[in-house]
């Protein structure tokens, strides 16, 4: 197991109090596999994955848990040791490369910078490697001399992939890598990314709010809601037999990338709860059409398949819930505003 996160907790200090952004999540990333983390904005997924590099805003802090990378808990490493891992072992692909690249540096120079400063490359070799990387992601070499704003959205994301792979890391964290692109470009970039991932045996943690992206490229999926993991397992299992009300709802709310089925969209009403004082019991309770009395109690993780787990009180009734969920009427009027 390349990456093993155990009971990770992250807090934010705000003027109004402490926000429990990530409230005890555990998941694993095997070698060479792609694990998707899916959830609404604000569910804690971005906070969680950024913390894997131990780069967090000053108001955020770890409040417990372990992040085991290649056997050792990186939370226990000194800053120096951690820095050795950054980019060389664990790399990051940002959501919006426009903001993530220095606007006054040429793109090629930014790749060369990482190669020379962190990879020990000499200038000439670094240039060659940069050209190689661009070719890998399908970008013209002359583009190395351009500035970020001269790239189109899709090209920028490809450049980000090139940058992330520069030092041949073992784990790549992709934070909504294609969200800002239009659908056709999304697919192209994901194809490129998939190809490279398989070629290099790269392990990936891919964050997205779009479950169809998960279906397209991931091996495993982790569903997050309100700072907790509500379901996780192999993609095939989770998508064919979602066993948490939220996952079921998500599936209905998005068009599928690969299938051509005509599916009626039924978004989940309402919004996620405040994480200042998280509600008792199941956090999805207030938006769930299947909520019952028992949901007021803290849910326990239930195994529903070989590697498939759910945090739903009614996980054993998943098949029924799925059936009922096909009717969009079930999802309307759940939240009484």
């Amino acid at each position, binding site marked *: 197991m390349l990456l093993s996160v155990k009971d990770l907790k992250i807090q934010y200090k705000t003027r109004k109090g402490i926000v429990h952004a990530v409230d005890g999540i555990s998941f694993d990333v095997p070698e060479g596999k792609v694990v998707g983390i899916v959830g609404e904005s604000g569910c804690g997924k971005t906070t969680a994955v*950024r913390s894997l*590099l131990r*780069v967090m805003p000053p108001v955020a802090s770890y409040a417990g848990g372990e992040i085991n990378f290649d056997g050792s808990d990186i939370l226990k490493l000194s800053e120096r040791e951690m*820095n*050795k*891992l*950054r*980019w*060389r072992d664990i*790399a*990051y692909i*940002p959501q*919006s490369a426009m*903001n*993530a*690249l*220095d*606007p*006054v*540096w040429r793109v090629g120079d930014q790749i060369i*910078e*990482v190669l020379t*400063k*962190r990879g020990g490359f000499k200038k000439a070799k670094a240039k060659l490697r940069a050209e190689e990387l661009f070719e890998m992601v399908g970008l013209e070499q002359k583009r190395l001399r351009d*500035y970020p*704003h*001269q790239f189109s959205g899709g090209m920028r994301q490809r450049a980000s992939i090139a940058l992330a792979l520069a030092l041949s890391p073992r784990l790549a964290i992709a934070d909504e890598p294609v969200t800002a692109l239009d659908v056709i470009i999304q697919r192209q970039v994901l194809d490129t990314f998939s190809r490279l991932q398989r070629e290099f045996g790269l392990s990936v943690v891919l964050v997205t709010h779009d479950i169809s992206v998960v279906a397209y490229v991931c091996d495993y999926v982790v569903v997050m809601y309100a700072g907790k993991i509500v379901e996780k397992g192999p993609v095939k299992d989770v998508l064919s037999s979602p066993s948490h009300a939220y996952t079921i709802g998500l599936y209905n709310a998005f068009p599928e990338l690969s299938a051509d089925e005509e599916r009626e969209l039924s978004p989940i009403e309402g919004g996620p709860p405040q994480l200042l004082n998280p509600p008792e019991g199941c956090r999805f309770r207030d938006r769930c059409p299947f909520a019952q009395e028992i949901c007021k109690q803290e849910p326990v993780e239930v195994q529903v398949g070989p590697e498939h787990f759910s945090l739903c009180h009614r996980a054993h009734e998943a098949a029924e819930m799925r059936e009922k969920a096909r009717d969009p009427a079930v999802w309307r009027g759940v939240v009484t505003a």
Partner: protein
Amino acid sequence: MKYVMSRLLYAILVLWIVGTILFFMFRLMPGSPLAAFIDQTTTLEQQQALIARFGLDKSLFQQYTIFLQNALQGDLGQSFFHRRPVTEVVMEALPNTVILTLSGLVVAYIFGVLAGAYLAWRRGSAVEGIGIPLALATRAAPEFWLGMVMLAFFSFHLGWFPAGGANSVGLEYDNEWRRIFTVDYLHHLILPVLTLAIYLQGLPLLLMRSNMIEILQEEFITMSKMKGLGSRTIVLNHAARNAMLPVATAFALGIGSAIGGNVVVETIFSWPGIGRLLVNAVSASDYPLAQGAFMIITAVLVAMNFVADMTYHLLDPRIRHAASN
């Protein structure tokens, strides 16, 4: 390129308009320009001859056209007081002002940029709590008062530096350049430059700090941390490089406004520059000289506004490419 040309033409237009305004302002002011030449003994004939000689008998519009024609050829008239061509007198004083201003600005900006970047990096610390009010205090102090304090302490009290002028009295030099590149000149230059620098550094300091704080919150800085790049690389090569753009523009603008504002520093230190020339000319009602000095200062100001415009557009690759599209 087209953009540059259009801004340049615009700058020239502004210069011409301002020059015209100044011309009419000087001509329409109350007070006779001939006061320096006329006393009780001057006869009416002599007065009229003087008036004719200085072209004051022609209509205002005619005077204006003559003025324009001459100005374009570099002739700014005769100084009443010095009895020499204005252009000559002004050009003698100009290098001193340029050297003083540039030296002051360079020192101020180097210090300001570094200190501002440092304060931004040390945000929320005690250093910031003292640093900002201090920077504001230097901006709140009159330049000439700073000069007075410097003079009183370093010159009169400690005797380390001369009390004024650009060269020690009694020394002769072959030509202008020799005069400037001497230790003596430098010795005289230090206090005025220091005074100017103390006053000017507040702006780049606060500007740089403010820019840096914004930039340090940008995504690409976080990315740099994720790449594992060192603090120094991040702050200098990335954050500062981005934060510098407005500061570079401010520098160009600073030259323009400092040239005019130097007046007081030059007066305090008896520095033989254009500012002091202007003040003396105005006091002596030496119209042509005052006007000439004013024009030169204005020309520098407008030119620097133009340069600032260009700097901003050329340094930022985003705007450079947008402008050429």
